């Protein structure tokens, strides 16, 4: 075979000749330093390659080696608690090898080859198995039982299976005889190409909410396990804090957090906090259920493009074991920009705002990998995807936001004005929506109470009404409003300040259990109902504002949950006696 060599270099894009036989998306090693790259274009025997590391110093004439493999990730026990870059290089291990800064040409295996895991087989000799079958299991952490599954593309008869014991990920645990009689050695480690979705039996409709402990999300714009959501907002509106809050508190079994082109200090913050924070569901450190992908904005742009695929493939792997997985991608705009940058270097004809014409289909392909599914082994698993979007200038009409909105079912619009008032989470209640609210109503009625749907729509209508009244106030002043409308404005303020505002930094308020959310909603809703009745009976809005029970309704969030439970009936009673007709 004649050796391929580089003929052109421009930034992260390299062309090589004598590449006949190479395939699209095949991994290659570029130059003397063997930088990792991927083929993204072919023309006769010339290949265009995007390189995942800095290409400084590479010259034409240097060799290019083929791997004959597509870009893949390593899957197996030991993924949890890891932090990877966009192409699954383990950052902690890279740090041990090359020091505080990331240098070129250094690599380490994604999964440790030394660490041993306790494997318990669940097959016996002679069993006929096909792709996705359960081979055995490994207790990866206290809470997560890691099921070892046969790779989806294999099948055959069990010739021999390893006994219970400790094995590394590259030791053979299964000898599988295929149709032709050839025996294949199977390890706990498998590789899967990142751009190919892992196969499933079928997609199932979502049924359960993804509880996040964030009031504006759970109660007003709910997300489901297996759903898709987008969080767009200008800089400073709190996208990253929302994503962090979801990664910390949502009730998924596994979290995959993709920091795609974001800030290094933010990744450092996640790494600092997650090991010490406790999962409210399992009481284990949050890190024990988390896989981090950190490709910060100054790390190579091509690896940023790959990072979301690396993340979703790992998410699919855990989904296939029957877990509910939540993936946060912060930010999908940086991923789209990486696509644009590579596309520009390829001199492709641009679509809107310079983005490639295939932007919409790439986004759709990615979000479609979410969902609740029946896996090959018959389990039910799900992937929920929450993507942050960073629209230039906060303008939601730009292509990435618009293409995302065509696919996702939940839209949490973050608002600069709210952020300026330090109203966090700055979810704009007039713009945001969730198409899952009817779907989760039965769950809420079971776990909260039967009034959930009514209260939710009443309170959303209240906020809508506030918006209309504010416009009138802008014209005529607050004085001329009828008492009923004045009272409406007061209640809306309580709803905003007490219920919608939620401090991510307050140790109690950072996570609000659904029962408490329901009760807080009940209190405000009842106050609204009784107060309106009282206004009808002749009470003024100012008089109601002076009632001690009004002051009670502010600052409910930071009250410790147990204290709140005992306070709740008291406030209810107070309210009943404060208003005429309150016991009705």
């Amino acid at each position: 075979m004649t050796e391929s060599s580089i003929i052109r270099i421009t930034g992260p894009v390299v062309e090589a000749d004598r590449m006949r036989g190479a395939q699209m998306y095949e991994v290659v090693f570029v130059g003397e330093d063997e930088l990792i790259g991927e083929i993204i274009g072919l023309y006769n025997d010339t290949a265009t390659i995007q390189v995942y590391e800095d290409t400084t110093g590479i010259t034409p004439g240097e060799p290019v080696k083929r791997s004959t493999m597509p870009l893949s990730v390593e899957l197996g026990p030991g993924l949890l608690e890891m932090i990877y870059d966009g192409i699954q290089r383990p950052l902690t291990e890279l740090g041990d090898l090359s020091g505080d800064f990331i240098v070129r040409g250094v690599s380490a295996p994604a999964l440790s080859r030394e660490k041993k895991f306790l494997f318990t087989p669940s097959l016996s000799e002679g069993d006929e198995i096909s792709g996705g079958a359960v081979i055995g299991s490994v207790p990866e952490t206290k809470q997560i039982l890691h099921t070892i599954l046969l790779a989806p593309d294999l099948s055959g008869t069990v010739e021999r299976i390893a006994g219970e014991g400790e094995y590394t990920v590259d030791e053979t645990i299964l000898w599988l005889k295929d149709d032709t009689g050839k025996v294949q050695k199977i390890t706990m480690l498998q590789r899967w190409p990142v751009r190919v979705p892992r196969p499933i039996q079928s997609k199932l409709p979502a049924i359960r909410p993804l509880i996040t402990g964030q009031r504006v999300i759970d109660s007003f714009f709910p997300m489901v396990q297996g759903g898709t959501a987008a969080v767009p907002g200008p800089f400073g509106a709190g996208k990253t804090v929302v994503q962090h809050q979801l990664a910390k508190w949502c009730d998924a079994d596994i979290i995959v957090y993709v920091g795609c082109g974001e800030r290094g200090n933010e990744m450092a913050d996640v790494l600092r906090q997650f090991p010490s924070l406790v999962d409210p569901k399992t009481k284990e450190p949050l890190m024990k259920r988390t896989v981090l992908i950190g490709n910060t904005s100054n790390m190579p742009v091509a690896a940023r493009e790959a990072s979301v695929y690396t993340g979703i493939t790992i998410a699919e792997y855990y989904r296939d074991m029957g877990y509910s997985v939540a993936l946060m991608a912060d930010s999908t705009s940086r991923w789209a920009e990486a696509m644009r940058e590579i596309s520009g270097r390829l001199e492709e004809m641009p679509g809107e705002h310079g983005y490639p014409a295939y932007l919409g289909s790439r986004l759709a392909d990615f979000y479609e990998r979410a969902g609740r599914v029946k896996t090959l082994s018959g389990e039910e698993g799900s992937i929920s995807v929450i993507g942050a979007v960073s629209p230039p200038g906060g303008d939601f009409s730009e292509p990435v936001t618009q293409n995302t909105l065509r696919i996702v079912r939940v839209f949490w619009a973050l608002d600069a004005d709210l952020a300026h008032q330090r109203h966090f989470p700055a979810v704009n209640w007039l713009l945001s929506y969730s198409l899952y609210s009817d779907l989760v109503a039965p769950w809420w009625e079971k776990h909260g109470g039967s009034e959930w749907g009514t209260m939710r729509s009443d309170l959303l209508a209240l906020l809508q009404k506030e918006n209309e009244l504010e416009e009138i106030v802008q014209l005529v002043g607050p004085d001329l409003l009828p008492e009923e409308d004045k009272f409406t404005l007061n209640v809306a303020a309580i709803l905003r300040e007490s219920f919608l505002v939620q401090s991510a930094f307050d140790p109690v308020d950072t996570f609000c259990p659904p029962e408490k959310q329901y009760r807080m909603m009940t209190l405000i809703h009842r106050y609204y109902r009784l107060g309106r009745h009282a206004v009808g009976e002749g009470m003024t809005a100012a008089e109601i504002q002076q009632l001690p029970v009004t002051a009670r309704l502010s600052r409910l969030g930071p009250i410790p949950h147990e204290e709140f439970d005992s306070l709740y009936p008291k406030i209810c009673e107070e309210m009943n006696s404060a208003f005429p007709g309150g016991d009705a």
Partner: protein
Amino acid sequence: MPPLREFQSVVRVAGPILAVSGIDDAGYNEVVKVLLPDGTVRTGQVLESRKGMAIVMVFGGTRDLDCDITAVRFTGRPMTMPVSKEMLGRIFSGSADPIDGGGSVVPEKEMEISGYAINPTKREFPQDSIETGISAIDGMNTLVQGQKLPVFSGSGLPHSFLAAQITRQARVRGTDESFAVVFAAMGITHEEARFFVEEFSETGARAHAVIFLNRADDPAIERIVTPRLALTAAEYLAFDLGMHVLVVMQDITAYCEALREVSAAREEIPARRGYPGYMYTDLASLYERAGRVKGRPGSITQLSILSMPDDDITHPVPDLTGYITEGQIVLSRELHRKGIYPPIDVLPCLSRLMQGGIGEGRTRPDHANVSSQLYAAYARGRRLAGLVAVIGDEGLTDVDRLYLTFLDRFEHEFVGQKRDEGRSFDETLDRAWDLLSIFPQDELKRIDPKYIKEHYRGGTG
């Protein structure tokens, strides 16, 4: 990379870009020396390399180049700079040549100017706040060592005074230790450059400052290297020598324009307003060089200044910057017209690292609550002021009027301060309590009652 090669085969010159034929092995990002017919030498860098051709960007511009005599020497090295402790107190050009009349610096080390990304697992999360002495920053947008916090300004606004005041007053919290300053000027006027140099000299800050000057009439393309040189010097001081370094870069907009010029000359497909699609990545390669590294004592804090064309915060330069930096300080023309210095409009300002740097054991336990309450009160005051402008103040309640009083006093007494006035964290927070105490206690919804008890000075109502 191969060793020194020289070619006398320039085939095309366009804007700041030239093409050299006949070379098969130019390295990507390799440094070249361009030898002009009159003997002068300019530095350049390879932007694209292919068999038989290299595309080179020339930092000094392409004036006087020709296609016959001009020679291009490929050095076989990426761009490096010599660094040394002796750089402190010196002034360099935008290409790191000494311009203060002193001799050249004896290097202790050669460093690649493009730098390497800090491994995120090796980053220390920045939590040590900096006392800048400016209330609007310390009280509401606290700066933290290792943070990158740009100042969004406009032409004619006093950003230079503010930057100079911060560099003069900034102290590592709890100590009297000041910062080493690295100042990178990109496309600023001679007058502004002189202001900084004099300011540093007068206050004695010059002895621990390294200054790089690319002025408005210096070659525009040089601006692409100037910030990288400055950050390389800063990394040496911070991570090799363990100093706390404050990097001031002005003006990022001029830098981005140089980037656009190169991109346009290469006929690349532009993104917004003609700026290249990779500008986010490129800016990140500058801004992300701020931070702290585990186990190393020093820190790099960035305070970049950028002028927003037409005060438009959605312009690509401030917009992409805001998405990379950890917040922003925004100057307002309206406050400036009212005569308030520093004219910081706190509402669009943000410090993302503030939460970790304030509170018990760092600044004061009531800090977070006070800041949040100031924001809520000021936002409400501004909304009411807008309302009054339309419908007059007849319909206002007594509480509403308090918010209007607060608005005015906040702008003058809290935001406003003298150019030589440095306030400690305690002074800033006490001043905030003076203002908040004009409200009845139950208006202070964002403050924990225990802090109200401790600090509130108003009546009981």
